């Protein structure tokens, strides 16, 4: 097969995609690295020059950076906890034979198909608005003081919105895992005297561990770069209370026109994402081994 001729030909054939990949991946990364070492502000582009590690130093020592880092991790962690626990509970519920099961399942998945900006707007204006939001109305009807969600608990508000979007995904994956549990195993555990709670913790949960791992890994990738929900609702505020790394980089580049600083932030975000990925793979990756 692999004669010299076919090898040359195959190289020639895959060349375009390799070139495309390089162009799409390597060039932006290289440019970002390059800009991160430049003093380059769009308000004063003529004063562009090599800056050494200054941009990194400036970005890391900025008090907003540490807040953004914490917010990022809290946001990812919070959403993961809610979607995994909630996903398991909803999966158990949807696994029961109920009337109109098909319709209920489709309704349940639908939040996943709503664009982040749209769902964030709906939450902002219809649910969490302190004057005419549904939560405010519920609070008022109970005689309580309505909460001004985005002013008093901005990060929690965003966690709720994002969790609402990702809950269906987690539920769906966990439901398929649940349905693949061998019914004879369940019968055997029942004969062995396992009560429903023991059945869940000894049989069902270990069976779902692989699916949970997949959900955690996939969600983490997307949650590290949450942006639209923050832009639409709190704009990172009040102060930096709901600013995550992505939003901080955006603020640097497009609000302060500091391209160099934003590039440095981007590189830091890439490194952070890799650290998280390594941790996750170390911690739960063994679940994926067959």
């Amino acid at each position, binding site marked *: 097969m692999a004669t010299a001729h076919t090898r040359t030909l195959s190289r020639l054939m895959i060349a375009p995609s390799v070139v495309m990949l390089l162009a799409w991946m390597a060039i932006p990364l290289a440019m970002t690295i390059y800009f991160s070492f430049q003093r380059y502000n769009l308000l004063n582009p003529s004063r562009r020059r090599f800056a050494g590690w200054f941009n990194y130093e400036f970005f890391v020592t900025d008090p907003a950076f540490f807040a953004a880092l914490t917010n990022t991790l809290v946001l990812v962690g919070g959403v993961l906890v809610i979607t995994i626990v909630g996903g398991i509970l909803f999966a158990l519920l949807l696994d029961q034979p109920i009337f109109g099961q098909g319709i209920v399942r489709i309704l349940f998945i639908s939040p996943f198909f709503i664009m982040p900006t749209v769902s964030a707007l709906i939450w902002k204006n219809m649910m969490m608005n302190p004057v005419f939001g549904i939560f405010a109305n519920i609070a008022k009807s109970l005689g309580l003081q309505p909460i001004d969600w985005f002013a008093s608990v901005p990060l929690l508000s965003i966690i709720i919105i994002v969790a609402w979007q990702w809950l269906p995904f987690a539920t769906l994956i966990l439901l398929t895992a649940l349905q693949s549990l061998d019914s*004879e195993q369940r*019968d*055997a555990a*029942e*004969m*062995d*005297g396992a009560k429903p709670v023991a059945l869940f913790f*000894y049989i069902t949960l*270990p069976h779902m561990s692989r699916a949970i791992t997949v959900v955690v890994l996939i969600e983490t990738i997307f949650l590290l770069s949450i942006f639209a929900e923050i832009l639409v609702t709190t704009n990172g505020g009040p102060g930096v209370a709901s600013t995550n790394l992505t939003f901080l980089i955006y603020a640097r580049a497009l609000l302060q026109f500091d391209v160099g600083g934003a590039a440095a932030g981007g590189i830091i975000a890439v490194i952070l994402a890799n650290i998280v990925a390594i941790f996750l793979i170390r911690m739960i990756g063994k679940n994926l081994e067959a």
Partner: protein
Amino acid sequence: MGSIRLESVRKVFGDAEVIPGVDLKINDGEFIVFVGPSGCGKSTLLRLIAGLEDLTGGKVLIDDKDVTGNAPAKRRLAMVFQSYALYPHMSVFNNIAFPLKMAEMEKTAIDKKVRDAADTLNLTDYLHRKPGQLSGGQRQRVAIGRAIVREPVAFLFDEPLSNLDAALRVNMRHEISQLHHQLNTTMIYVTHDQVEAMTLADRIVVLNEGRVEQFGSPLQLYQKPSNRFVAGFIGSPMMNFIEGPTAAEHDAHTIGVRPEHIIVSKKKGTWSGVVTIAEHLGADTFLRVECGAIGTITARASGEFTVGYGDTVFLTPDSKKTYRFDKNGRTIGHRPQQADTTGNQKTP
């Protein structure tokens, strides 16, 4: 202790009546085998006894106590499943220990029991392994181990050997038989396999479409089948059935004669025919013979019988071992126990 009684047990799935009504009395310490064609309700009946399915009607009694409403664990039965149903994420030790843990037994007692069971079943070297790292036979033994540590009043086996290869199956069959003699506990065993049924059982229940066709010892079923279904189901190769004028000569709608009760000759006999298949197994020779109006007959000649495709042979059925059946398939002549479900092992 471990007598089991079923009283007009009925099971309906949706609008399909799978078990129309079964009465059965199983004595303590007996080895009972359920046989029947696929889909006849063997597993369902076993699951009804185990408590894994709810009864539509009737009663299940264990040691004369009504357990119809009891949860499976309360019935003190243990079940071994066809797929083994081991817990894949637990080690062999934890698999066997699981029922004891659920019973909240203390750790040292669990440890001792599990090791004893592992010893009996030659599993000691594998206690730390996961089920995925075991062979089929070892997995089966773990499943049996998980069943015996609970010291149940009866064991239920649902086709436990059907996933094993032929040689291992024979081995495990002997082990299960030995286990029964050691423990002297009631066992109910579901199988497709005739040989397993005949060799293991004290008594066999032949099921057909959820009905008990006959209940008796292996030889009773072989020698005195109560109807055509049982006659055809027990014995291998299957009994030959002949209808029409030949059967009418015997005052029957159908007559049946087993392949091993036919004398094969190259010179003379009652029926003559042409060999269409000859299987030479060394110890036996099985012939399929095309006998014209009578139909195709399977016959066994013991030892080597040198005929081949297209040869003419003569067959003589043993008249003393020819069974006669009426229009409804019932046996005429000897009075076999008609679907005897009363639990008496004596022949009337």
